[in-house]
């Protein structure tokens, strides 16, 4: 069974079509990056996969279930981790937010007054924080962490539910280059245990870490990086190198002269 299956999904707001017959799938332990221009439908697609919206045409299956039924299988890391920095909350409390099995091992009294965490819960929080290398920050206030550290805590919060699909929305948009590299290395590691789906603009990093790239601009184009590392003069590179894509890649590693030649000759 496929981890995620998106089949001919279309979606419109009012009359404006943002997704048109989008199809792709994700296997377990695969690392997929979604790129594309703003307004190209990335956020809408994420909302559909997480069951916040229903597709108007086509269907989405997560482990064979509808996204709503599969909620517990999906871990989500939101884009903006700069919200509510003044809020008095510890790293431990943030991570425990992700714990779906709230009542496991709780006594009746703990269930009626769930202010403190019991040992089972603490161990769970500790082990997920260990995975992202933040176990020493358990008691820190979330607002006192750096952007990269906070992003790791948010990943730990998502991992707390032991998801089989981890979804991240531009996880490094507000982090320096070094922190960015660390986050992607961590995601690569995590993709040995679960499917990872990340929306990103950091093309140079993605091409080194992801297994597949989905270029989304109303329609979707899938590129398999493992079979075909990005060289835009290969035949597979052609559909990939649309105008926007060229602009995005051009600045970084695209030899556009070469590409134009190959397009003319074909």
């Amino acid at each position, binding site marked *: 069974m496929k981890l995620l299956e998106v089949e001919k999904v279309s979606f419109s707001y009012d009359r404006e079509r943002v997704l048109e017959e989008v199809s792709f799938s994700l296997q377990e332990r695969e690392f997929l990056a979604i790129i594309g221009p703003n307004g190209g439908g990335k956020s809408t697609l994420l909302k559909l996969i*997480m069951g*916040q919206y229903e597709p108007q045409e086509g269907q989405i299956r997560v482990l064979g279930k509808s996204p709503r039924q599969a*909620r517990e299988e999906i871990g*989500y890391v*939101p884009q903006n981790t700069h*919200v*509510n920095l*003044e*809020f*008095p*909350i*510890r790293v431990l*409390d*943030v991570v*425990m*937010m*992700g714990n*779906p099995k*709230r009542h496991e091992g709780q006594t009746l009294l703990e269930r*009626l*007054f*769930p*202010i403190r965490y019991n040992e089972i819960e603490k161990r769970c929080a500790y082990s997920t924080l260990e995975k992202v290398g933040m176990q020493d920050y358990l*008691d820190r*206030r979330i607002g006192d962490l750096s952007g990269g550290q906070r992003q790791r805590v948010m990943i730990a*919060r998502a991992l707390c539910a032991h998801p089989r699909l981890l979804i991240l929305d531009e996880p490094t948009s507000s982090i320096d280059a070094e922190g960015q590299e660390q986050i992607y290395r961590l995601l690569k590691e995590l993709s040995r245990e679960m499917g990872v789906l990340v929306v990103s603009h950091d093309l140079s990093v993605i091409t080194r870490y992801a297994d597949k790239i989905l270029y989304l601009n109303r329609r979707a184009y899938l590129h398999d990086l493992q079979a075909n590392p990005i060289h835009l003069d290969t035949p597979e590179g052609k559909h990939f190198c649309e105008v926007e894509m060229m602009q995005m890649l051009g600045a970084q590693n695209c030899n556009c002269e070469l590409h134009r030649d190959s397009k003319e000759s074909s």
Partner: protein
Amino acid sequence: MTEIFHYTFMQNALIAGILVSFAAGIVGSLIVVNRLVFLTGGIAHSSYGGIGMALYFGLPIFLGASLFSVGAALLIAVLTFRRRHRSDTYIGLIWAVGMAIGVIFTDLTPGYNTDLMSYLFGSILAVSREDLWFMGFLLLLVLLTVHRWYRPILAMSYDAEYAELRGIPTRRFYTLILVLSALTVVVAIKVVGLILVIALMTIPTHIAERCTRTFYAMMIFSGLLASLFTLVGLMLSYAYDLSSGASIILVAAAGLGLFEAGRTLIAGRS
């Protein structure tokens, strides 16, 4: 100064001050972190409609005001869920319409016309034994609610979008917080009045947020601070024969000023 504790009315006033301040500190924390301060202000003012109706129909003031303000809270909750970006319009509307209803019903009430000012700005020296029971009951209700649903409330207050994804019924909890704040406003009528209550709910909270590491500690600390401000304010109002509600609020404001000044000093030194 100690003779202030000998009079029954002063004892009642002090007990009422502490009960109400604690509730205001806790519920104030909830509304501040969830950005519902303006909403609560609207509910507070509209509850005057309940006072007017209670006078007209000869009901207990607390009962009339409670029913009316909880109704206003539910109405605002429904309206703002439907069109969130217009919530400030609805708040302003309910704010003014509620007060207008109160004024008209007070006009219609024959005979003795109650002093409007005492409801708007508080008259703590007229606290009865029944009032104390009502205040105690509300504080207990607030404490039980916050303990029972601490985790979902915490999750929602910190990151509502994520809480919703995790299946927490955030709308229900927003409504619950609004109902609690409506009731808190009502019990605070006698202590600081409808208009000044919003300061008692936000000033201690603002200080507490900066001094604590957990939301729970923030609520407790803010309740303690609110009680402290209220006690000092009451003593000043007794000593210099000033309005109790206004004294309490100015003491709180002075406390905030001192706190901010102290923080700036410490930050400048290190």
